[in-house]
């Protein structure tokens, strides 16, 4: 939180050396968020690239009034929404990525964990984009509904509704998958 404030302050005061620090600090979080939203990692990287390219190019003119994290998440969400229609779901590719980045050292546990995450990703890909977006911002982004509503420019009730329906659908999909 404090680091975010420092980074925002430094960026607003024209410190160009802080740009690489900002990228290193947020890149994984933003790529994960975009990848889970679009279900496609290469597209997610394109989104993050265009967001950072814009941030770098406007470093002498842009003043960020909120926090750097919120600003970047908003940009990623908007950019993902723009390219969502043309996005192709690549769940298999994402699951391979998960296997490579598994934190579990024991192979049996890692296999179970990856299986669960693959199921989750498959279920996530069946949830409508708007609902998936809210669920990810709420759980992965650790954001409040009020903040999500501000980012998506939607009423808070709509956001809460999308979250509830999305989570219900996700739960039912996961349960039915387990029953199979």
């Amino acid at each position, binding site marked *: 939180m404090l680091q975010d404030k420092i980074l925002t302050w430094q960026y607003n005061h024209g410190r160009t050396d802080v740009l690489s620090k900002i990228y290193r600090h947020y890149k994984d979080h933003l790529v994960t968020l975009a990848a889970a939203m679009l279900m496609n990692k290469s597209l997610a990287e394109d989104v993050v690239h265009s967001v*950072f390219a814009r941030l770098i190019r406007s470093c002498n003119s842009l003043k960020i009034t909120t926090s750097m994290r919120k600003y970047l998440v908003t940009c990623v969400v908007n950019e993902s929404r723009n390219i969502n229609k043309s996005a192709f779901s690549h769940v298999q590719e994402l699951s391979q990525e998960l296997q490579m*980045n598994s934190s579990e050292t024991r192979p049996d546990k890692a296999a179970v964990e990856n299986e669960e995450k693959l199921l989750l990703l498959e279920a996530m890909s069946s949830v409508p984009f708007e609902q998936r977006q809210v669920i990810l911002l709420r*759980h992965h982004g650790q954001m409040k509904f009020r903040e999500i509503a501000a980012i998506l420019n939607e009423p808070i009730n709509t956001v809460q509704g999308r979250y509830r329906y999305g989570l219900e659908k996700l739960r039912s999909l996961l349960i039915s998958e387990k029953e199979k």
Partner: protein
Amino acid sequence: MRPSDKINKMLKELNFPASSRLDQKIALELRNIPQKHPDRDMQIWRMFMNRKMMPVSAVLAIIMITIIYFSFSSGSNVAFAEVLKAIQTTSYRFTLSLSYNNEKPNIMKAMVLEPGIIRYDTEFLPGLGTLSSISNINNGESLLLFHEKKIAQKLDSTMEEGFAGTRALLQSAITISGTCGALKTAAKQISAERPSTGLKPKAFL
């Protein structure tokens, strides 16, 4: 563990790290960071100068009114003479708005207390508080009151005819702006010295 808790945990733990391809692309972008516009420092300097020039603008406006008054007081134009007569015989208030380069205008509240004596109240210099200027346009004397600093300065600019008179007025305007600048600097110096010496700051004008 409830299913929703498990979903929450799994979503939190999702991690797709950025690839080296993205790192390279961003590194390339970082190499081409746009340089600061060469004129930017100059622009800041100009802005600063504008702020510093505000007292001059304000004082010039006062002087312009005074010049107009003296230039037309010979009274060749009947209509304007009537206006002058009203100025000389009635007491009134008006607000003068001075703006430069579309910046936030400086508001000066002016009032004619009695015929020939005008008072202006303004806050055009940040940090100096309210400045009151009481001018007697009959004998060319002015009194500047810096409320916050509790300092007064008397200016005596004898009016001369024609261009010489205007130049004298402009010179007095420059003197006032210099005074304002000195006041800002000196006030900072005094406040810095105060805790160590224990002396009360004195007027330095």
